[in-house]
Each structure stands twice: as C-alpha cells, then as structure tokens.
C-alpha cells in the first residue's frame, strides 16, 4: 500500500515536472535579446480562437522574421473582447471597443529593459475611427442610427488626456437624407481627411445605401476640426471600408484613395463601380481626374479589402474574388500595387487562400523602407507573421504566434 502510494506520487510528481517544463518550452525570442538592452521591440497582439472568454494578449518580440512567441502563460491581458491599437509618439494605445459604452484606454511605452510598461489609463468612448494625427490621437464616435451627431476627441499623447472635442452632424454632412459614416481618419498635410460611406442608418439595413456609386472625403482643418469641404468622385464607390483606412499620404505629398466598391443595399452588392485607386494631388483638395488605377481590371476580377503602405509608392493589398464580394470580407490573397507606375503584381509565397483562416485586418506593420511589410496570417495550424517583400512580390513565413490569431503588429522604441 505504502509502496504503491509512493509510486503514484512519484509518477504524479514526474508528470507535473514534465508538464511544467512543457509550459516553459516556447522561449520568447525577446528574452534572449541584446544584453545591452535592445533599443526596440515589436509588439504583437494576439487573441485565442474561442467562442468565449476571448481577450487580447500583448506580446513582445525582437524579430518578426523567425522564432516563436506564445500567449500560453505569457502576455499582458487586455480587458474586453474587441480591442484596437494605435501607436504614436512611441506610445502604444490599447482601445476598447465596448458596444457603445465608454471604457478605459490603456497606454504603454517600452521600458529600457524592453518590457511593456503601463502608463496611466484614461477614459474614452467606443470609437469607430482613430488615427495618429500630429502629436495627438484623433478619435471619432460615429452613431450608425439614432443620434445624428458624431463626436470627435483629440487625445494628447504627451499628457494622455483628451484636450479637445466636438460634434459633427453626420446627417447634415451627408446631405442626401442618409448619414455619413467615416470609414477612417487620416492626417494629410496639416489637415484631416475623413472618407465616409453614406448609410441609411435604420430599418434593419443600417449599412445599406441608395448611393452606392460615389466617393466622399470630408476635409477638416486641424486641430479645430472645421469642415472645409467635401470632395466627391463618381468614378468609384466609397473610400475605405467600415473601420478600415482607405487613404494614404505618400512621400510626394500626394494622397491615394482606395475603394473596394462594396456598397450594399438590403444586403445586396449594388455598386456598379470597379475596385480602384484614385489620387488627390499634393496640396489640392480635388480628385485627380487623370489618375485612375483600376484594380478590378489589373487583378482580373479581384477587389482589395485592406492596404498596407510600405513606402516608395508600394502598397501590400489583401485581395478577394469579385464574385464573392462583401462589405466585410477578409482578403486572403496578396498583391503589390505600385501607385506611381500603376503596376499590379501578385505576391507568391503566402499560404493558399483555402488554407488561410484569418488575415490581420488593420495594424499590420511596415518600417516604410519601400520594401517590407509584416502581415499576420492564421492558417488551420497556427498563426504566423509573413514578411512580404514588395520589391520582389514574394512572402516568407516568419515569427510564429502560438495561441491564436494576430490582431496587431506594431513597434516601440525603448525609453
């Protein structure tokens, strides 16, 4: 009796030991990092693929091109299932998307030892668009029904306080009986460009519209957010997508606008316009009628779902077949669009689209070196960061992120 008990205990002990070792197995590359104190870290947000209890975990890594990081027993837990991230002035902001409720935004910087260091929290609204603008984070809470006024907030990244706010009547802005729903906010020169979609905002078809064939960009002065004008273009449908950035100011000061052509009415795709990239020349607030980069044509029947700028006129696009058009689809094929030369090249080296479960939608990372972008891809086996080479239109599997999908990739310099 005594013997068997002891045996049992030893077996349990050994298995526990084994289990404990297993748990420690995936060594974070960060831990082996530069002993002199690395000067920067990549921040990766990951959330488990599960039907409840889902939270994001913030992980750090020195390298996106190889190794493994895991959320098992590791990472800073973020409250709330849906969180979004933005980096400005070397601070990392973790925003809560709280079903219309206000909530706490957590701010981090990177300590000299390369650890994420929590700075003070502040209270914010659930916002549908946010962007780094100058020294601020500009955020907008946009009512999709009911209330007619969107609220914008200007958060100063130094004081981590909201320093200004204001209202925008989205029904007045749309001026067509529907409401303007900003797809995103982007700093352009000294101004803020806010492309929007026109939505009905009611009647079981909130995001439907009877104006599927126009693009609008509201131009605001900054920091006082006065509406200067609304630029329109009837060659494409709206710019950007819900919760997705659709414009980029490049090195030349020109602004490129990306339209997927995915407007709907009562759940049906109703836009007759192709997926295309248009341009607003440096210093102007008009679309360049001579520039029209037809992506539907160039890709032979695909439309773009997101874009990541890598610099020097090159964008990594996620692409989806046009016969399966949808306003909220995730493109699982990748292409490089050179907006200077209007060239379109498919990327090789990413998993086959049928093997891809998820692609990180926003918050992919590029050092803006004109060559590389880092994109999160979840296959049926694990999640990886792929390094996409925009010059050669190739992709290579890099860092593995164990434990779930990748929701954001960013970078901080240590203090």
């Amino acid at each position: 009796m005594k013997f068997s008990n002891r045996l049992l205990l030893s077996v349990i002990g050994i298995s526990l030991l084994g289990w404990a070792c297993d748990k420690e197995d995936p060594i974070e590359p960060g831990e082996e990092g530069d002993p002199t104190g690395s000067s920067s870290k990549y921040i990766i947000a990951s959330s488990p693929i599960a039907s409840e209890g889902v939270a994001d975990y913030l992980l750090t890594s020195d390298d996106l091109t190889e190794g493994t990081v895991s959320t098992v027993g590791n990472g800073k837990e973020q409250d709330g299932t849906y969180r979004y991230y933005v980096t400005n002035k070397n601070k990392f902001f973790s925003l809560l998307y709280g079903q219309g409720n206000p909530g706490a935004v957590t701010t981090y910087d990177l300590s000299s030892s390369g650890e994420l260091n929590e700075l003070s929290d502040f209270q914010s609204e659930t916002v549908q668009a946010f962007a780094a603008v100058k020294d601020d984070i500009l955020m907008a809470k946009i009512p999709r029904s009911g209330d007619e006024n969107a609220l914008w907030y200007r958060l100063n990244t130094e004081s981590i306080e909201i320093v200004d706010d204001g209202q925008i009547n989205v029904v007045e802005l749309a001026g067509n009986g529907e409401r303007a729903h900003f797809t995103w906010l982007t700093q352009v020169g000294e101004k803020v460009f806010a492309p929007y979609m026109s939505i009905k905002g009611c009647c079981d078809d909130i995001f439907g519209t009877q104006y599927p064939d126009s693009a609008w960009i509201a131009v605001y002065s900054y920091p006082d957010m006065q509406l200067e004008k609304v630029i329109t273009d009837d060659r494409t449908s709206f710019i950007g997508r819900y919760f997705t950035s659709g414009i980029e100011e490049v090195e030349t000061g020109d602004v490129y606008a990306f339209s997927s052509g995915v407007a709907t009415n009562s759940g049906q795709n109703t836009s007759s316009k192709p997926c295309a990239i248009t341009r607003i020349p440096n210093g102007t607030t008009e679309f360049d009628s001579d520039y029209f980069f037809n992506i539907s044509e160039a890709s032979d029947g695909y439309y773009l779902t997101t874009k990541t700028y890598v610099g020097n006129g090159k964008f990594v696009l996620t692409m989806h077949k046009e016969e399966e058009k949808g306003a909220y689809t995730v493109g699982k094929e990748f292409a490089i669009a050179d907006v200077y030369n209007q060239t379109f090249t498919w990327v090789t080296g990413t998993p086959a689209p049928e093997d891809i479960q998820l692609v990180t939608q926003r918050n992919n990372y590029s050092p803006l070196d004109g060559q590389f972008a880092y994109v999160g891809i979840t296959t049926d086996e694990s999640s990886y960061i792929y390094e996409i080479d925009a010059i050669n239109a190739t992709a290579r599997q890099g860092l593995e992120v164990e434990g779930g999908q990748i929701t954001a990739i960013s970078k901080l310099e240590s203090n």
Partner: protein
Amino acid sequence: MQYKKLLLLGICCALSIFAYSQNTAVSGHITDTEGNPIVGATILLQEISKGGSSDSKGNFSIKNLSPGIYTVEVRYIGYSPKIKKVNLKRNQTLKLDFQLSESAYGLEAVTISAKSKAKITKELAYNVDVIDTKQLQNSTLDIGHALDRISGVRIRESGGVGSRMSFSLNGFTGKQVKFFIDGVPMENFGSSFQLNNIPVNLAQRIEVYKGVVPIWLGSDALGGAVNIVTSKAPGSYIDASYSYGSFNTHKSVINAEYVGKNGLIAQINAFQNYSDNNYKVNVDVADINTGKYYPEQEVRRFHDSYHNETLIAKIGVVNKSYADRMLFGVTLGQNYSEIQTGARLVSVFGDWHRKGNIVMPTFKYKKNDLILDGLDLTLNANYNLGKEQNIDTVNRRYNWFQEYRQYEGEGSERSRSLYKYSNNTGVITANANYPINERHSISINSVFNSFNRKGSDELYPKNDNYDQPRKSIKNITGLGYKYEISEKWSTSVFLKHFHQSNKYSQSYNPTGNWGDLAYLNQVNTFNTIGYGIASTYFINEIVQLKASYEKSYRLPETDELYGDLVNLQGNIELDPEKSDNYNLGAQYFLDLNPHNQITINGNIIYRDARDFIRPRLNNNQTMQVMDNLFNVTNLGFDGEIRYFFNDLVSAGMNLTYQNVRNDTKYEEGQSVESVVYRDRIPNMPFLFGNADVSLFLDDVFATGNTLTVGYNMLYVHAFYLYWPSLGSDKLDIPEQISHDINVTYSIQNGKYNITAECRNITNDRLYDNFSLQKPGRSFSVKLRYFINNL
C-alpha cells in the same frame, strides 16, 4: 447506535409475536401539516421500547401488545416529535393519527429535505435540493438570494436591489436552467416578475432539480430546473411584512388567503421593492472633459433606483365535484430600473433607464380521481401581455462625480431609443398521473408555449421592420413511468418530445432600388427526443443512494433566433444545445442520540454538453449573433453536512467544486488542438460554499416567544475573467467572503416577528462580476405579522 436500536426494535417485534395477543394493537396514519403522508416516521412505545415505522402511505400498525398505559412517541427527521399517552385495552386496536409539523430549525435554508417532504418522495430519485422558506420568511431575501445558499448554485448579481442576476447551476447558466412557478414555466415573464424581485415570502419552498428534470416540469432545460412552490393547502391566513434598510430600501409583502365554507377561495400575493441602491463603490473616476482618471475614488452610486410593484390575485373554488381546485387570476406588475453602469464600473450612465410591466391572466385547475380512481389531472394556462421599454434619450455623458456634459441635438448616452415591445407569450401546461397499481404508475405532461413579439419605437415611426412577425410555437410533451421495484428501490424513466416552430421574416431587396423593400416570411421547425432515468435505493434506514441520467436539450430562445434589436442579431439556423447529464448521490441520516442529529449529503455530477449557443460578433462587428460554438464538460462534486442539537442549534455547511472545462477540441477552421482545449471555463465560479449557524431560544421573556440568532457565510474562490492558461498579467474576480447575521424575535408563536439583519458585516468589497462592486455593509429591519386559521 442507530443500528443497535433498530436491531433491538426488530428483535422486540419478533419476540412480541409470540408473547402477546394479536388483537391488542395501535395503528394509525402519519401526515404532515398539508395532509401528505410521511413515509418512514418512527413510532415508539417508550415503556416497552417497541415500535415500528410508517409505510409508503404513512400508515403504521404495532400489534401484539399487552394492555396498559403507553407513551407513544412519533419522530421524523426535520419534524417536531409528537408524544401521546394512551390507555390500551385488551383486544382493542387503538386508532392514532398524528400530524407532524416541521420543526423550527429542521429544514432551514439548504437542508436536503427530499426525504422529509413526503410529497417529494415521488421524486426521491432525482438530484433535488429543497429550500424550505419557513425560516427565511422573516428575512428580507429575494428568491435569488435564497437560491444562492444551495450547493451547486451560484447567483451573480451586478449591483443592489433589482440588479441583473445571473443564475448558474453546475456550470449551466442563463437559459440553460429553467424556472417554474408552481410547475408553470416562467418563460418571458418580463422584468417585473423575476428572481431579483420576488420576495422569499411568496414561496413556500423552492425546489432545485440538478441536471435531471422530472417530466411534470415540462421544459427544455439543459442543466436543471428551479420550481418555486407557492401553493399551500387551503386555509385562511394573512402574512404581511414590511422592511426598511440601508440605501433607502423598502420592501413589503402581503400574502393572504381566504377559504369559505362553501369552497370559495381567494388569494392575494402583493409585493413591492424600492431601493435607491446608492451604495458606495471604489472606482477610477474620469474627468468629464479630459478623460483622465482620478484613481480609487470612493463615490456613491447615483442613478440606480429600482422599484417594482406586483399583485397576484386569484379567485376560485376548492373541493367541488368538478374540481379539487380551480382558480382564475391575474398577475399585474410593473418595474422601473435606472441603469448606472455598463459591463464595467468605469462606464457610467445618469439618465438611461428601463421600464417593464406584466399583465398576465392565469387559470389553474386540479382534479384528482378524474373518471378513474387515481387519475389526477392538473391544468395551467397564462398569457402575458406585458411590455418592456428601453429609454435612452438624454444626450449627455456623465462621470462618477455626477458631472455631465450636455451635447447638442438629439442623442443618447448609449443608443437613442424609446423602443417598446411586448412578447405576447402564452403558456398552457397539462399534467396527468395514473397509478396502474401499487408499484407502477405513469404520467404524461405537455407544455405549449407561444411567442409573438411586437414592438415599435416612437422615435422612429417609419421603421416598419419592427412590425414584422416574430412568432414562435414550442411544444414539449413528456411521458414518464415509475416502477417501485421494492420498498427500498424505485425507478423512473421518461421520454420528452421537443417541438418548436418559428415563423420569421427577413428583409430583402427584390430589385436593388432604394425603398423597394420586401419581407420574406419563412418557417422553420425542429423536433427532438430527449430521455432519462432516475433510480433510488435505500441500503437501510439511514443510507440512501440515488442515480439519474438525462439526455437533455435546450431549444434556442426567441431572442437568440430573432435578436433583441439592440445588440443581438438574430440567427434562425441555430441548433438546440444538448447535454448528457449524470448524477450519483448518497445521503446519510444519523441520529447520534436523541439530542444530536447529523445529515450528510454528497453528489457527484458529470455533464457532457455540446453545441452551446454563444455570441460572436457578426461580420460587420456591429452586433452580436448567436451560434452553436462550444462544448463543455463538468465533473463536479458537492457536499453538505448539517447538524442539529435538539431544538436549540442548527449548523451546516456546503461546498461545491465544479471542474467546468472547454471540450471544444478544434475551433472552426483549425486542424490543431485549440490552445484552450480542456482549459477551465473562464469567468465562472468553480469553488464556493456556504456555512450557517442558527440558535433558537424558546420562551424568551414570555412563553411562546422565540429568539433566533442566525449567521450565514458565503465563500467564493477567486476566478479568472479570461482563459486561465493564457497571459501572465491577468485580470481576475477576487475571492469573496461575506458574513451576514440576523436576529429575529417572534411573539405569540410567530404571530408577530421582528428581524434585524446585517449583511456583509465586514464591509468587504464584494464582486460577482469583474469590476462591478456589490453593496457594502447594510442593515435592515423587518416587521412581519402572520396569522393562520382565521
């Protein structure tokens, strides 16, 4: 001890057959105060240490006695013993009937009284806990807080009086556990008649069926059912009480019944709750302009008033040839609830509120021995016309310092709404029992639910979507068979047929042109069969074993199928949730000696549940949508021990451990094992318990006046908000230990009662949900008047 006594009894009995004349005897019938037979009561003739026990009909007989004067003692666990002196003459069979009343302490709180309630012997085989509310009648508890003292059950509340309560039983939550009132499903009763506002005084007892639900509670309960029993044996009484407590809390209850000589019966149950709920919380307060937090401020809740008023009136007849009981009634109620916070304490509101009412005609009918001897029929019907309304029209943002920003134009705090809807729910239940013979009986039950939601929002009169049909019909029929194999062994088997048909409409655009909107009406139907078995065996007088199993289903609720039009989008493709529920239990009744009694009860449960309906964000991340996403197992244990010392002390404790694990091995689209496969389900208490001690002092200051001092402790182990295995820097819901005390002074055998209560005496920060702090120390005083047999 007990064995020896029994052995001795047996020997005495055996010997007596030869020693005495057969004709001299005592016999009789033992019942409880409701007239139900008590099975297994001990009858003892003190002078000769001879006795026996009552049979399954409550009858006993002690034969072969010599003439003389005897002291007859009748005892049964949980009941006050009765003693009677008799003079027995030669060749006389003396008829002696006893009515035992529940002892003052006997079944307080969470005592397993399955055995003590003769009525429940039918369901003995089920894993059932019963709260006898007798001792709670003088407290200010609502039904929810009373349930919280049962093993396996956790009530989680988001705030004070009237706050949202979520109920969990052995790892099942929300709609997976069904509630009944007198056997009638409480589905879609609305916010005016819920666990968080029904006072414990309305209930005579509360039964909690764990995992396996008898068919007479016809329902699609996945993980168990709670039945609130209000009906008592006909009799005239008045029970009225009023309490006042901290946070300006007023509660009153009046229960009265009148039974006339001609069989006329009238019942009134009326109750009211009011509270400002302005208790203090500790929270990071945001600056109204800058969003900057002032950390850890102690502030009062300021927009959390709750009140409800409910009246249940019934009139009818009893003991007529056409009905043993027939009642027509109506339930009328309303409630008003201010919403102080969102899902986290930092999101604070100052004007948003909800209202609801209930207008529900009811009908109840019961007839025993209908056509055939032993054929008992029960019929219930009700229809709820009540409305619910969400009112959010003030364009402000508040902070915890009660400062606010007024914004221009029409707006809201969260989502502008005056949406009002009515679920128009109807329920009909029918239940029939028939004993084929002494050992075999069958029962049949059928429950019919109808649902027809209609709603509108005066802010958006053109939104015709709200006027589309959202109809659902649900019918559950059960067939049960019970076989009493022997006095010691009884088994029930049952089949349940689930049927649901849903009629729904979907908007679509036939041409693609704006305004050309049409609605597609569709019907979907599902049919499923569930089944189960429950068996119990008495090894001897003091040890009982139980085992039960059910293949259970929960049909999707109308909200899940159709959405709530606010945050939840409908999904008509849902499948029922299903589970295999296993229970194994043992009870042990031990009389250490006439003064000390101990009962021990332990259960092992296993649940293998599939296809849980869980929310996920819909494609455009604008609403949540329900889907069959999740499998869960739970291997759990709960145990309870209770000790009685005479009529003076009752003490008990229970502990529940549930190992609720994620059994979803592969998430959709994944070929590798989920990283959280077999991980403990987060945000769910897994180890918790209660302990209580009560002291009963009789004849304090005057004869017939009793003083009761009670103490109750609740313990909940800390648990993680999100998956335990993930992350290193984690959020949790801290350990919860709360202590409540109460003192009751009852005058004239319980006619007048005064109770002083203190809850959370240590003023600890208590949390059931992440960040949502519950009330601190609170006091209340309750006055109650009770008079029986008017």
